[in-house]
């Protein structure tokens, strides 16, 4: 696989997402002397597209349309395929997000790209792109061969560093939208509303996650977990015991039937570590467990453990973290 690499950007609060910047870093590393070209679709996004420049990208395709306010992956995949062809790109890299995964899935068919998601390593050798990625909930790592003339890869969040930002001129190339088959826009989808996000980062996006489990004992004690999360600037997660008991909504659940997370730091508070929970968090870089039972399975996968009463340890830890962060 030869030629430039195309990085498809995503917006987060009106700016290029961190996941996009990580994707630029990956594309740069895999491209050698070849060019890295940006792509961004949305509504009024020229300022955001300039963010590619700060990551060292010279050239960005910009597809602007009010109908792209919420990304329509079928349309974006169509436009990305055309842009990739126009610059002779063989590889498309996307950040590790819901959008990134959906787009890569579409590209696998529309652009006949060999596709992979959740990449923690990417190398381009000769005609093949090799991707390393965790499988079986992080219990194994596979190397996947993406052969053929096209490949599309979504990377795993937080697995790669974003390139250092500088000031850099970027040329924006508008992408015409008039040739899009109408069937890709229709049937029209309706976004009714986006619930206001809490102050903290979201679970799958956060670089630190603090989760509470059965050991918290009651809904009214869960604030201990949340205060620790606020101190860390972390997202709040929960084990299934907590969501089943209704102490927190199901959207908080980390594990087999909930969300899979892989933050830099995962703090498990009062979580025993059933396999169904472990598969959702075991690929976190550093795991801390706080539990009263020294024989809890969570200590087998944790890097650091504190055996003790969480009702004493957690408030002390919250104060200490606040102090360390100058809060």
């Amino acid at each position, binding site marked *: 696989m030869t030629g430039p690499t195309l990085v498809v950007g995503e917006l987060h609060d009106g700016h290029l997402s961190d996941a996009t910047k990580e994707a630029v870093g990956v594309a740069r590393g895999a491209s050698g002397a070849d060019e890295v070209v940006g792509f961004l679709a949305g509504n009024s996004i020229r300022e955001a597209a300039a963010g590619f420049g700060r990551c060292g990208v010279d050239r960005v395709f910009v597809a602007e349309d009010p109908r792209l306010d919420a990304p329509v992956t079928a349309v974006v995949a169509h436009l990305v395929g055309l842009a990739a062809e126009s610059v002779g790109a063989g590889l498309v890299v996307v950040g590790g997000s819901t959008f990134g995964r959906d787009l890569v899935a579409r590209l*696998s068919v529309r652009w006949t790209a060999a*596709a992979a998601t959740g990449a923690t390593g990417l190398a381009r050798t000769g005609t093949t792109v090799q991707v390393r990625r965790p499988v079986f909930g992080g219990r194994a790592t596979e190397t996947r061969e993406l052969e053929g003339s096209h490949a599309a890869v979504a990377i795993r969040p937080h697995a790669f560093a974003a390139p250092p930002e500088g000031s850099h001129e970027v040329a924006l190339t508008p992408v015409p939208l008039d040739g899009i088959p109408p069937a890709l826009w229709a049937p029209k989808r*309706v976004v*009714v509303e986006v619930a206001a996000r809490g102050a903290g980062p979201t679970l799958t996006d956060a670089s630190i996650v603090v989760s509470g489990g059965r050991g918290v004992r009651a809904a009214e004690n869960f604030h201990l977990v949340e205060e620790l999360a606020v101190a860390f600037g972390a997202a709040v997660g929960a084990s299934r015991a907590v969501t089943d008991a209704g102490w927190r909504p199901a959207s908080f659940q980390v594990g087999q*039937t909930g969300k899979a997370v892989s933050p830099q730091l995962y703090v498990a508070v009062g979580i025993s570590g059933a396999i169904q929970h472990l598969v959702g968090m075991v690929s976190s870089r*550093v795991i801390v467990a706080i539990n009263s039972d020294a024989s809890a399975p969570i200590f087998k996968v944790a890097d*650091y*453990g*504190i055996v003790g009463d969480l009702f004493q340890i957690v408030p002390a830890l919250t104060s*200490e973290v606040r102090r360390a962060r100058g809060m």
Partner: protein
Amino acid sequence: MEIVVCVKPVPDPETRLRVSADGTTLDIEAVKFVLAGYDESAVEQALLLKEATPGSKVHVISAGPPPRTEEVLRASLALGCDLATWVETPPAVAPDPVSAARALARAVSAVPHDLVLCGKQAGDDEAGLVPGALAELLGVPDFSAVIDLRWDAAASRLKFQRSTEAGLEKWEAPVPCVVALQQAWNDPRTAKLPAILKSRKLPITKLPPAPATPASGASRASRFELPPPRTGAKMIEYKTPEEAAQKLVKVLKEEAKVFP
């Protein structure tokens, strides 16, 4: 409503993984296969929608090798699915996600379908590619990370939430479409013995695998590695909670370098 639910057999998450001596395959000889976790939720959600919408049918479809694919289809019939279709692929190795999507698309196209439900990803390859690829092949929209999926019969619309990086989004969409489910309304049900016995005799429509096409977007796993066994946590020794907190913050800053 005609509901199609796509499922995949995966190794039971409780089974221990082993890699072959040359590292190129996972040893699945002694492995028990079960419905993938999110697919179990998708089947549950399909059945709940059927129960809430009189006149609905649930058709379960899977593309994979014998015998495990037939087993999860029978398990789905035992749970209450009405019809089953199996695209039989060569033995042993599961098809890669894009090839699986191509096989599923052929099977789905051949039957009536308003809503096509998938689990958001399977617990073996964790790819999550099938729903989007399937939607592209069928020429319909897809919605991922879906929770709280309802069918508003009066408005002829699906109403649901998506749990994405942006937060919780409320959506409405007409059918046909593909939905990649994150969570059903409630926990997957378990099949009752008479239903399990009956499911063994129910018919399953069999389709041959699609002929291989060049540049099909397929990929293959060439190597598997297991992580080094975790040595267990480094335990923090302490006399007071404050000391535990100080020691932990110190190692997170200086040793693990994850903080602040």
